[in-house]
Structure formats: C-alpha cells, structure tokens
C-alpha cells in the first residue's frame, strides 16, 4: 500500500529531525542541525538493506516516489513565498556569490579529473 511508503518516509524524516535537533543541542545551536541530511541517509540505508531482501513493494515505493516528484513544485512554491523585496535591497550578493562559486568551481574540474582516471576506465571495461 502507498501509505506504507509515506509512513516509512515520515519515519525517516522524524528520526532524522530528532537526530538533528539533538545534535543542535550538543553544539549549542537552537534548531535542527543537518536533520534533513540524516533523514536522507537513513532512507538510503533502509532502502539498501531492504533491497538485499528483495526490495520494497512497488506500491510502497510509489508512495515515496510521489513525494520525490513533488520536490520541484514545492521549491517553486517556496520561491514564490519569500521576502524578495527585502532580499533585493540586500544588493548583488546573490549574483556575486552564485557566479563566483560556479566559475571558480569550473577551474577545479581539470585538476580533480587527474585523480583515478585510469580506474574509471577499467570500471567501464568490465
């Protein structure tokens, strides 16, 4: 049933958020620290573990995949509900940060590509 998937997703979400909040308490930050990341990690691990035993049922998977598909629409709704007027009065920081980060990362690509180049090729030959 689809609800099993949604329930599993909720379980990972809540447990992840709990871990994040506890971590926040430990490092003295008010709020949840990395909760979403923990929840994702949890889902990946549970999924991998279940896959070894034959995998989740299709219906269960669909319950999760539906929410994964709603990700972009939610991001758009989120963008439409931000305080953009105030953000714009903050000046060019978004444009500067976004461009500098991306262009500078381009320049690291050829440097990092040197690592393990032969290895990937042999992987492909297999």
């Amino acid at each position: 049933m689809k609800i099993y998937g949604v329930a599993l997703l909720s379980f990972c979400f809540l447990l992840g958020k709990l871990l994040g909040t506890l971590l926040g308490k430990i490092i003295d930050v008010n709020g949840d620290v990395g909760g979403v990341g923990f929840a994702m990690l949890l889902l990946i691990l549970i999924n991998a573990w279940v896959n070894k035993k034959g995998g989740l049922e299709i219906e269960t998977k669909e319950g999760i995949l539906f929410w994964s598909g709603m990700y972009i629409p939610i991001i758009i709704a989120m963008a439409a509900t931000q305080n953009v007027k105030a953000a714009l009065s903050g000046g060019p920081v978004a444009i500067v940060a976004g461009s500098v980060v991306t262009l500078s990362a381009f320049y690291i690509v050829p440097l990092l590509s040197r690592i393990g180049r032969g290895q990937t090729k042999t992987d492909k030959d297999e």
Partner: protein
Amino acid sequence: MSEILSQLIEKNGLLFSFLFVGIIMWVSFKISKTLLKNKIPGVALAVILGLTLAFLGDKKGIADLSLFSGMAFFGGSMLRDFAVVATAMGADINKIRSAGLVGVISLFIGVFWSFTIGVICAYFLGYTDPASLATIGAGACTYIVGPVTGSALGVSSEIIAISIAAGVVKTIVATVGTPLLANYMKLNNPHAAIVFGGLIGTTSGVTAGLAATDPKLVPYGALTATFYTGLGCLLCPSLFYYLLRIVLNG
C-alpha cells in the same frame, strides 16, 4: 460570482496552489523548450518566475495575497524537507560505488568549495552573523541547501530569498557557462563529467550544461550531482556552520 470563486479558492488554498504551481511549471517548461531552446532549464525558469511572483506581496511573498495563501503551506519548510528527503529514494549505494573515489572526493570538495566561497562573498558584501553567512554559503551550493540550512538556523525570509537566488544564479551560470568552458575543463569524457557533477552539484544546471556540451555525458554528471544536495543538507547546517562559528570567533 467572483466572490463565490474567491471564497472557494480561499477555502481550498492548498489545492489551488497545486493548480497554480502546475500552471507556472507548464508555462516555464514551454518557454524553456520553444523560446529558449532548452538553453536555460525549465526548472530554473520556474524558480525565477516564482521569485518574481513573490514581488506581488511582501514578507510572505505571493502568500500575502489571500487568494494565494495556500502557497505558504505548499512551499513551507515541512513539505519541502519531506520532499527533499524523498529524493534520496533515487540514490543507490551501488551507484555511489560506480562513481568511485574521485566522485566522492569531488562531491566533498564541491560542497566545501561552494560553501566557503559563498560565505567569503557574503562576508565582503557586509554580512557578518554566522547564521546568515552559512545560509548564503549553503545557497551557493544549491537553491535547496540554502533554505534548508536557513530554516534550521532560524534566519529571516530575506536571507533565505538571497540564498535561493544565489542557487538559481549558479544553475544559470552552470547551464550557460559549461558549453563555453568545456574545452578548458577537458570535459569530453565520462570521468571528467563525474568530477564536474560532483563539483558543481546543482542537478538542473549540471544536466542542462552537459546536455549542451555533449548529451552522452549527462548521466555521468547526474550520477554525482544527485548526491550533492543531500550532502550539502547534511554538512552545511552542522559541521560547516560549526566550523564557521569557530573561525568567526577566533
């Protein structure tokens, strides 16, 4: 009639927001495909359109208009985080293995680099408190990592909007810049595409940029890029924020 209609919509705000966002996406993807020939991804266009629509309101963007109040819940942090977690379903541990060591290294360097450079940019443009800096730095990773970090650290909607915008700029620069700089990056083999995906990370920008360079490279870049946002959501509001506070206080 119009009063009946507006009452109906206000009562069913969330459902109306589904319809409304659906229309935004349909229009954006049409424009991206026909007018822009996929040069700018439909997703980036839709986010830009969303940010533009937010100008119709004030603090809560378009949700300040009662007709669109459902947008606040649809785009609120609960459903957003829920959907972000759901995307991990597509992550396959075997795929991580096939990306190999270089994929993992480039992912970590990519997230760290974007965060650090983003923070430095924001610092020089006058932001000094660690939570705002971390949010903008996280936004320079992707337009998801920014808001996730921002709401975890409790910053204002203004800073979150900046972080989304930074992520969108990144997507566009990646899309337009990748084919132009592909030769310099020696971006002509799967190995380089895996590194590229891990370093840039913004999935729509990586896939669109690679598609414009050489469509055969898209799956390799997407392979690492799909893990980027998750890693960013894990590291930015926790370890990186923690380190940032130490650096700023020290």
